[in-house]
């Protein structure tokens, strides 16, 4: 809770909560008011994590299932290993030494050993080497996530990284790298030591850039949006322009689009995907987790969604403590504050809104998660990563949110009455007309929800009553069956009963079928659109690529040269071989007499090897030279730039000097002029004086 004071004759405290609620307290007595205000201020801005509520919270309910151990990676891996043996658990990070923001256990390709991982970790930002995020059972495609590679300006490469990334591809298949930054941002990252995978070294991968904003841009967006929602003005234009200016809905659309793209690559294109941005702890997780919700029906259940949050947000190292410190009403600018998780929840809500029957949980569940991410009596969202959590001993000292949520009586509130499990991939629409402001969070305190709650209640009642009726009918049927068999009635009636039952079932089945068909039809339409959007995206990317091509021309030239050299190499080798064969034949013929064929051959082989080595050496030298040339070129350029800058500076200095001189000259001239003027004035004065004197003299002379 952030709190601000506002003192009149009666003390007034306005408390602005992290869940966007604003409470006003009027307190008689200035001093009391001040005391309360400062207490709230102090208690809401605790320095130490260990002073926070979760460490003092004593639950009043009995723990049925401990949430801390509900989603262990080993257990999750069991499911995976029952489908494929291409993956293994790696404990390389068990003491958090390889990557401080990763969990102790990660899933990596079986063919990659820990030693390789270690090398890859050095090459990736923050040690976040590519790990498995999602395995698509339908076609065996995978989604990996990581941080950016540390290519730097030199285009550094890491063969182990290439090996690891390629190990996720099926033979002959291509993959997509989804970079959650714009191409520009990714290129700029090189200057800071970061970068992106270059086609040269990852030829089987195609890179796609999607621009998802980060940090303070998102935080400002949230602040603007909340401000707009709290505006009591009746001006429609003002509301719409504020909503537009906040850009919140734009970011929702961008994130959803990127997630759909990732899902599409996996499900439609049958390609594996690697997702990363810079650190791989924010936009990366938004994309990977949303893609799973789209692809995997399990993630749309309550348990599955919790598991997703644990895997893709908590264990994956989203820094909750930094990102969710103050919410929208923060006074001071927090450098690391950003509503990344709230945006994710909003996106989930958008999908839920478009597929109201496909989720086991309801909107209330998402709102609850939003609240607990920002302020909670449970320790689940404390700390920035597993490393910090283990140091804080959260498991021993605090309660898990899941222990509370997963109690049957609590779960009831989070269940969606419309839920009917379907195993389909659900493609949301990302058209602006399809996306809405999440009223459940942003307008929650600004208007009464009574009528909407009643609608929810009514819906629940209709569905519950239907279920009750269905059960009743079925149980009565059974009853009749039993009595009839006991009485030894004719089979005819039984058959009739069965037929009736079958009819009811058929009707139900037909209905279900129809629903599924409808959904499928809709999805087909949607899929088509998605594919087209993909195409558009691809087109855009192609354009980007063209730009890239221009920008990375130097690198590509190097590549081309290399390729040409490779070709030449092959050709040369072939020529050499042919020549050798000819020689062999000739020499065999010649040496038939001499019978020293083997020796000659050995010699020839030696020669071949030597030639090969020479060729390679030459090529390496050439490569080196090329690289050196490029580097030299760069240096030359840099030097030139520096020189230019120097020249410019010199010129500027010269100009300045000249200007100074001019100014000085001007001043001198002015001074001279002034002096002259003064002199003239003096002269005039003297003249006047003289005249006066003369006049006086005259007057005196002529009294």
């Amino acid at each position, binding site marked *: 809770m952030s709190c601000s004071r506002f003192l009149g004759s009666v003390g007034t405290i306005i408390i602005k909560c992290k869940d966007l609620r604003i409470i006003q307290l009027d307190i008689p007595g200035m001093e009391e008011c001040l005391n309360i205000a400062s207490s709230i201020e102090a208690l809401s801005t605790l320095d130490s994590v260990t002073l926070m509520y979760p460490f003092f919270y004593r639950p009043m309910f009995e723990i049925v299932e401990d949430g801390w151990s509900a989603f262990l990676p080993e257990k999750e891996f069991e499911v995976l290993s029952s489908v494929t043996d291409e993956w293994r658990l790696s404990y390389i990070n068990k003491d958090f030494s390889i990557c401080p923001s990763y969990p102790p256990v990660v899933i990596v390709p079986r063919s990659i050993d820990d030693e390789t991982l270690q090398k890859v970790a050095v090459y990736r930002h923050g040690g976040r080497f590519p790990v498995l995020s999602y395995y698509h059972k339908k076609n065996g495609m995978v989604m990996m996530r990581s941080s950016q590679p540390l290519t730097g300006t030199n285009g550094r490469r890491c063969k182990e990284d290439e090996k690891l990334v390629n190990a996720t591809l099926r033979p002959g298949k291509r993959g997509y790298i989804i970079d959650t930054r714009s191409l520009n941002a990714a290129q700029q990252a090189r200057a800071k030591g970061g970068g992106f995978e270059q086609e040269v070294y990852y030829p089987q991968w195609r890179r796609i850039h999607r621009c998802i904003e980060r940090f303070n841009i998102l935080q400002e967006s949230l602040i603007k949006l909340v401000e707009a929602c709290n505006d009591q003005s009746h001006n429609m234009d003002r509301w*719409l322009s504020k909503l537009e200016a906040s*850009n919140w809905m734009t970011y929702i659309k961008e994130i959803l689009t990127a997630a759909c793209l990732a899902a599409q690559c996996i499900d439609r294109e049958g390609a594996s995907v690697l997702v990363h941005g810079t650190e791989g702890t924010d936009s990366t997780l938004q994309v990977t987790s949303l893609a799973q919700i789209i692809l995997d029906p399990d993630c749309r259940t309550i348990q599955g969604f919790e598991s997703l949050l644990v895997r893709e947000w908590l264990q994956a190292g989203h820094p909750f403590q930094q990102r969710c410190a103050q919410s929208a009403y923060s006074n001071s600018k927090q450098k690391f504050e950003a509503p990344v998780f709230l945006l994710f929840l909003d996106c989930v809500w958008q999908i839920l809104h478009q597929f109201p029957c*496909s989720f086991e949980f309801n909107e209330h569940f998402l709102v609850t998660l939003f609240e607990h991410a920002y302020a909670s009596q449970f320790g689940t969202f404390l700390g920035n990563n597993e490393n910090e959590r283990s140091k804080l001993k959260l498991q021993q000292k605090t309660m898990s949110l899941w222990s509370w949520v997963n109690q049957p009586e609590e779960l009831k509130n989070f269940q969606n009455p419309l839920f009917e499990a379907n195993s389909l991939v659900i493609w949301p629409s990302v058209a602006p*007309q399809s996306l809405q402001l999440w009223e459940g969070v942003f307008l929650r305190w600004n208007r009464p929800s009574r009528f909407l709650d*009643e609608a929810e209640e009514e819906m629940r009642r209709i569905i519950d009553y239907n279920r009750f009726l269905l059960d009743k009918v079925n149980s009565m049927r059974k*009853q009749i069956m039993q009595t009839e068999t006991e009485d030894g009635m004719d089979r005819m009636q039984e058959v009739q009963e069965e037929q009736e039952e079958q009819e009811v079932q058929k009707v139900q089945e037909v209905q279900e079928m129809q629903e599924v068909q409808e959904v499928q039809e809709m999805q087909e339409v949607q899929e088509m659109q998605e594919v087209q959007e993909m*195409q558009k995206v691809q087109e855009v990317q192609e354009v980007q690529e063209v730009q890239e091509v221009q920008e990375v021309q130097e690198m590509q030239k190097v590549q081309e040269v290399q390729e040409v050299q490779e070709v030449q190499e092959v050709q040369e080798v072939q020529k050499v071989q042919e020549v050798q064969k000819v020689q062999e034949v000739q020499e065999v013929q010649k040496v038939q007499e001499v019978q020293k064929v083997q020796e000659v051959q050995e010699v020839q082989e030696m020669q071949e090897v030597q030639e090969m080595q020479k060729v390679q050496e030459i090529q390496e030298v050439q490569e080196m030279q090329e690289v050196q040339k490029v580097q030299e070129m760069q240096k030359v350029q840099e030097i030139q730039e520096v020189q230019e800058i120097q020249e410019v500076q010199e010129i500027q200095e010269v100009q300045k000097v000249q200007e100074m001189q001019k100014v000085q000259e001007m001043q001198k001239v002015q001074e001279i002029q002034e002096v002259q003027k003064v002199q003239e004035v003096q002269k005039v004065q003297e003249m006047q004086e003289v005249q006066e004197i003369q006049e006086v003299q005259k007057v005196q002379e002529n009294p």
Partner: protein
Amino acid sequence: MWALQSKGKNSWIEERKQLGRALSHKQCHVQYNHHLEFSRGCQRLTNHRPRQLARLQRSVLPAYPSERVEYTQLVENVKLLDRYTNRRAASGTLYLTATHLIYVDASAEVRKETWILHHHIATVEKLPLTTAGCPLLIHCKNFHVAHFVIGQERDCHEVYTSLLKLSQPVKPEELYAFSYNPKMSKDNREIGWKLIDLKVDYQRMGIPNDYWEITDLNKDYEVCSTYPPEIVVPRAASKATVIGSSRFRSRGRIPVLSYLYKENNAAICRCSQPLSGFSARCLEDEQMLQAIREANPGSPFMYVVDTRPKLNAMANRAAGKGYENEDNYDNIRFKFIGIENIHVMRNSLQKLLEVCETKSPSMSDFLTGLENSGWLRHIKAVMDASVFLAKAVKDEKASVLVHCSDGWDRTAQVCSLASLLLDPFYRTFKGFMVLIEKEWIAMGHKFSHRCGHLDGDPKEVSPVFTQFIECVWQLMQQFPCTFEFNEHFLLEIHDHVYSCQFGNFLGTCHKEREDLKIFEKTHSLWPFLLQKKQELRNPLYRGFTAYKELQPNTLPFSFQFWCGMYNRFDKGMHPKQCVLDHLLSCMNQKIKLEDNASELENKLPFLDGPLPSEACYLSKVGCAASKTSMLNTPQDYQGEPPAVLSNGISVGDANVTSDVEQKNKENLANRRDLHRNDSVDVLNSEAKDGKPQHH
């Protein structure tokens, strides 16, 4: 052009030539014969694609028996482009019938038809020739946009000119309603017209009473040509006062009662602007307002609300019109509520539709476009005005007199919405029909001009009624359990306002409808809609008594863009799973289950207590069941025996609608009416059932 029916072969050929087609006489003969052949049962085509045409025969021929389809045009190899995506275009055949443009997609595996009623066509554009062919862009009044590409430029031009003629009938007799024949008996048609009786609604309000009377002063349209013969005026207003007042009001539209809030006698009255100019006054008009004020003894004053922006009202003074001078009338409180005029609204909608049509806009583009269109601002203005009226009546207990310029656009919007806010009856099927009949049709909203039914002045066209329908939808979003009907009902009404299939919305006022012999020659929409009640109802409706007055939030964020209206035919944008459909199927399932249950209960010889399994379940759902009694389900407010549902027809039809995209509802109706002679019985019982509700 469909009027060709009676002209026969030669005149058909003459028409053809006039269309400017360079066809030889022989060619024309061939074509004519071909069309005849098509109309005789599509034999020629049946040979080619028997399976595909099976449906068309069913759809077209029953509605247009072979001897009646005289003009049909057919173009093959036509592409239908998807509006938003570059997906492979559908390829198929285009048919023009007397009433519809029908496109049959031959490329799809599942047969797909697109039906467009000629009356729904707002504009037809021929776009520049492309390599794929000649594009034809059709904008419909129900916001359907169809983009065809026709292979031959000649064919395209032909279709274009035909559609231009077909979509802009010149004479009222050319409208669909005069040829639409659902094969209903004369008696039933008359009963249909009598379904909505405004007198019954006035009775419901307690009129006539001590203060108000229903007068036939206007029976010969002498007081006002655009009012109905019977109007409700204060008992205290003498004939002279009424006549005098009518001379002082624009087009004689005197103050009459729109709605009486029985609880406190406060009334909503409506009229047109006074002819006050800069200083003119009229004693009778002042007496009239006094009579209205005194008809509500509970309040010492009354409001006079001018729904125009003040500037517009002041400008009118120069033309000898204007607004009431507070000094001249006793105890009135005068107020402007700035709702813009029809021209501003027309342009606003135009801008909104441009935004909706933009190909893959960014979020920013969309929101900026939405803002710049001003559409939601206008919707909010109408809603604000209605809320003001409702509050004045309910909270301040004061009567309100509302007018704009002529009192048939903004006034109709505001009065009908205020009634809807105040009275739960108007939120039922029957009540909503009454409301539209009363405030819009009877009081002379110029549907014919505003909807552009006939070829006329495009500046008279304006989406005034569309705005009203949207305001109701906005209310539905805020109060999901208060309306008996659902969104489809609103869309259905909106469709038929433009379709001219039924007589209700033809003409501009009651007098004109009488002159057109609407009541003898056409059918009423309402019985047709009541028949489809099952699919048009709101499953969440909590009944007539659950909510009384509504007080909507009118802060800007309470208004949403109505994707279901303006992007209605872009299915990809809508939620992929529809809660409404799901709940409607639940309701249907419920009835079947209840039947099953009672049947089984009879079979079970011993049923003194609940079964063991049932008892166990009862305890589980007990809380849900006990909170709101089982009797209080929305189903019980339908007042309809389950037998109607179990005849299976509505279910079967529902399937048809679901599997055929963009199915034209009118035609469904045709078939249903044809196949169901019992439909009218349902109707009758409906009418009888409806009546007790009034009292």
